[in-house]
């Protein structure tokens, strides 16, 4: 249900038949590995998945013990089948963490696969090579923190930690790894039930769209090979990311809630276009300059540039630059960190209004409030101990699987309720905020 596996309006019996039929479909797909990939690719994906399956939740009884346990094999087969049937997404690290609790709960490989497809409809974009969706989530979290606790935000800013990168794992895995396994199950259930239902029209798809012909065998290479060209261009998307002041909203969203799935499938949402790519190239060239002139770097906000995230657009032609920011702007953003962030630097932030729920956190606002709650749980301790970037990141790393679920949930729910009631996110405001927030960047 929560993973939007069942279409609306089925009777109990129909549901059972449906799931049986889908399970058979999975078994068939699983039998087609060899038809879907060359032996080399299969070996490559298989090797990656195996390496990760052997280090996913192994302390939990379900996955503990011998390396050839049937549960590990099931997780392995499930992930490979997904990777081969979704060539545009393939396999990325982190997916095993997402699939693992589902399999442990369903205790059935085929059914777990169906659910995994359901959840990946929403989460696949987290794994995009360009990191754009993650960038939006970071931006939203930053605005949320800035608004909720400006003092703590100022502390993080002063310590160069306002990029919030130490929350990367939280956002990518929707905090699954921050709590003990059983707590994580409860957390996920609560979080999933906060989402509006998005049942499949007829049935949940177990396969994804094929690769565009031009990409060819790129799916394999994109995981290993790093073409030099893309790097510089990446910086620019990056600058939009880190200096989150420029935007509080995702550039372009499919109409409403009901279209989560469209994130992957609609070309509009991906902003793919010849022009866009040329722009990337141009910006790329401009971006290189600061790198080649170390003296310039010294005059920048050093922390800012040292921690400026670097994204990695369109390795395989998917998604980049959906809002087509003009080149010179982004140079300024990278080359002139402080200049691009005057409100923060002056310590007088005017936080932009929060985006409406269907946009906030890219359609999953509650997860942002969970992250916020975790941050606030540790706020006092961090400030009291005067932790720097590294220390606070280490602090949170040590708390993997040890966060206190009840406290976090309680706090997150209260914060979320405030947000929903405040209606600061009134849809129009949200749009304005987005437009307004973009403009400083392009001036």
């Amino acid at each position, binding site marked *: 249900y929560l993973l939007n596996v069942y279409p609306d309006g089925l009777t109990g019996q129909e549901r059972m038949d449906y799931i049986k039929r889908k399970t058979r479909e999975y078994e068939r797909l699983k039998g087609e590995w060899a038809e879907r990939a060359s032996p080399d690719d299969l070996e490559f994906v298989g090797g990656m998945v195996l390496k990760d399956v052997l280090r996913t939740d192994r302390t939990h009884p379900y996955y503990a013990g011998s390396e050839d346990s049937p549960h590990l094999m099931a997780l392995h087969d499930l992930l490979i089948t997904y990777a081969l049937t979704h060539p545009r997404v393939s396999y990325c690290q982190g997916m095993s963490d997402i699939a693992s609790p589902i399999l442990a709960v369903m205790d059935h490989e085929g059914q777990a696969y169906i659910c995994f497809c359901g959840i990946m409809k929403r989460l696949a974009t987290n794994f995009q090579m360009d990191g754009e969706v993650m960038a939006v989530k970071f931006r939203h979290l930053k605005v949320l923190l800035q608004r909720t606790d400006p003092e703590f935000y100022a502390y993080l800013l002063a310590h160069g930690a306002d990029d919030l990168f130490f929350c990367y794992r939280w956002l990518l895995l929707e905090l699954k790894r921050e709590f003990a396994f059983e707590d994580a199950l409860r957390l996920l259930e609560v979080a999933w039930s906060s989402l509006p239902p998005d049942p499949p029209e007829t049935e949940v798809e177990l396969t994804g769209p094929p690769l565009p012909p031009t990409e060819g065998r790129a799916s394999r290479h994109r995981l290993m*090979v790093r073409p030099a060209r893309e790097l510089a261009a990446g910086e620019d998307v990056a600058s939009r990311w880190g200096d989150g002041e420029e935007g509080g909203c995702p550039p372009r969203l499919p109409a409403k809630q009901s279209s989560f799935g469209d994130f992957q499938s609609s070309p509009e949402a991906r902003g793919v276009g010849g022009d866009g790519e040329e722009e990337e190239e141009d910006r790329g060239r401009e971006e290189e300059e600061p790198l080649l002139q170390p003296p310039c770097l010294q005059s920048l906000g050093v922390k800012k540039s040292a921690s400026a995230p670097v994204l990695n657009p369109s390795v395989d032609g998917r998604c980049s630059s959906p809002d087509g920011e003009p080149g010179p702007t982004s140079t300024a953003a990278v080359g002139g960190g402080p200049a691009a962030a005057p409100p923060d630097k002056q310590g007088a932030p005017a936080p932009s209004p929060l985006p409406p729920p269907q946009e906030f956190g890219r359609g999953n606002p509650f997860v942002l409030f969970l992250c916020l709650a975790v941050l606030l749980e540790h706020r006092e301790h961090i400030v009291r101990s005067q932790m720097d970037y590294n220390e606070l990141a280490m602090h949170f790393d040590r708390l993997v699987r040890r966060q206190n679920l009840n406290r976090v949930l309680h706090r997150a729910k209260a914060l979320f309720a405030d947000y929903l009631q405040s209606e600061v996110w009134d849809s129009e405001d949200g749009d304005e905020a987005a437009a307004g927030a973009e403009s400083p960047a392009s001036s």
Partner: protein
Amino acid sequence: MAYAYLFKYIIIGDTGVGKSCLLLQFTDKRFQPVHDLTIGVEFGARMITIDGKQIKLQIWDTAGQESFRSITRSYYRGAAGALLVYDITRRDTFNHLTTWLEDARQHSNSNMVIMLIGNKSDLESRREVKKDEGEAFAREHGLIFMETSAKTASNVEEAFINTAREIYEKIQEGVFDINNEANGIKIGPQHAATNASHSGGHGGQQAGGGCC
């Protein structure tokens, strides 16, 4: 804790070569055979002593997979040292070194000290990459080289410390601009005494040159 210098390191290399295990062995002196796979970047720190000076190492342990490159690249630029790790039992991890090196060189400051590490030296029977090959690669690209075992702790201390020593020597030679934090080096409170006297001198001059 007081330190004279703080050096920032980044650990890079293919997935599964033992980056996180090297870090854990260095910071906690233990080996955890079943280790969570790293998502994004994880963090560690330890104090070492070089030339009688306390040096704090701040270490960023990055995820090996390309899908995280967007976040891990952002850490290159602030690093003074990099440990580039491959697995001596997997030839492909050695073959990818060139790409890693290009990536690192392109995104880091040019003085960054890079230590090449062939890890898992305890698995001699499964070795696919000869020690000579590692040495040759390092020589060709101007890197320092060591083979280590995160499992037995062999050479792990040395790898981290030798990298620090190289950075320290570069500082002494004046190659690194230690006042630019973007180089991954920070002068610590222990050093502050000497520094304060310098800036005190400047301050004095500005204030009317009373002390001169």
